[in-house]
């Protein structure tokens, strides 16, 4: 009997941290693939920034730099944690100042699961 493949993506603990100038922000979350097929994060959109993309902070000794991750594989059964100094959603050129405590929407595009809308709380640090 054939087993249907199904992508099940859960996204939790979503929060974003704006810089003090309210120009850019970084988004963090926990993405889990509980389905029985691999998936990948292939895009991000937000209404409150000009651009949104997935980045990863790469540390080579003392050197810290960011690199764009256009395709982030999320294998079945795996959890990917977006956190400071690691994967994050880079939200450049905020359209509007954000207030600590307010919530905003982020749209995440997965290769198999499609678009998923998540709610992020604006915070200075993870609670």
């Amino acid at each position: 009997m054939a087993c249907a493949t199904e992508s099940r993506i859960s996204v939790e603990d979503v929060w974003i941290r704006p810089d003090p100038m309210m120009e850019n922000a970084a988004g963090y979350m926990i993405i889990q693939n509980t389905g029985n097929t691999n998936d990948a994060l292939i895009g991000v959109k937000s209404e409150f920034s000009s651009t949104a993309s997935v980045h990863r902070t790469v540390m080579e000794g003392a050197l810290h730099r960011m690199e764009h991750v256009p395709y982030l594989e999320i294998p079945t059964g795996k959890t990917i944690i977006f956190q400071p100094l690691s994967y994050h959603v880079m939200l450049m050129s905020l359209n509007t100042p954000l207030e600590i405590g307010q919530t905003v929407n982020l749209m995440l595009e997965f290769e198999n699961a499609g678009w998923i809308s998540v709610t992020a709380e604006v915070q200075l640090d993870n609670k």
Partner: protein
Amino acid sequence: MLKFRPFVNTILISLLLLTIGVLLWIRQSSQPSYLDTVNLTPAPIPDDIFVGDKMVPPVPIADFNLINYTGDNVSNSNLLGKITLLSFTYTSCPDTCPIMFGRFLGLQKEFDNALDADIQLVFVTVDPEVDTPERLKQYTETLGGQWLFLTEELDIMREIWDTFHVYVEKEGALVGHSNLTYLIDELGLVQVRYSGLPPTSAFAADIRKLQEQSS
């Protein structure tokens, strides 16, 4: 008989090489090995150990002349007479740098009364094309920072980064850079270097250690 001569020569050369090899091996094994020459007893931990990397010997801070966010010139001589924690960062940085600003804000709370009088916190930008004094002022005041935030023209900043071994690579609005922080004593000697983003408690402990040594 002549046709066996090359064969005999080969055997003789092989025997000669084997003899030389054996003699070298005997000579080598009679010498003490590297491990024999190393004292494996742990050295006592010195009282003045720092969380960061101690500079041995301490290095005098290089000459520099930069502009603070207030518009005032700040040179290396302005660092004399106080303990200084100096780090490199930029204001458009969304992921890594907020952590370092948080560390310095934590130190402000920790050393509330001593700040300015005995201890000073200094940021140096790695993005001078964006980080004008006006922008640094707005950033510092928004965060409630009590630090100096220094900038200058790009050419001058490149010299400063080289002096402090800070690698900088700009890609669009983002700047990859070495996260290096230096603890400088009242005489202007770089005593400790930190790589990465140590916790506030690490900086605080080392500042206190330096205060003890200075008193």
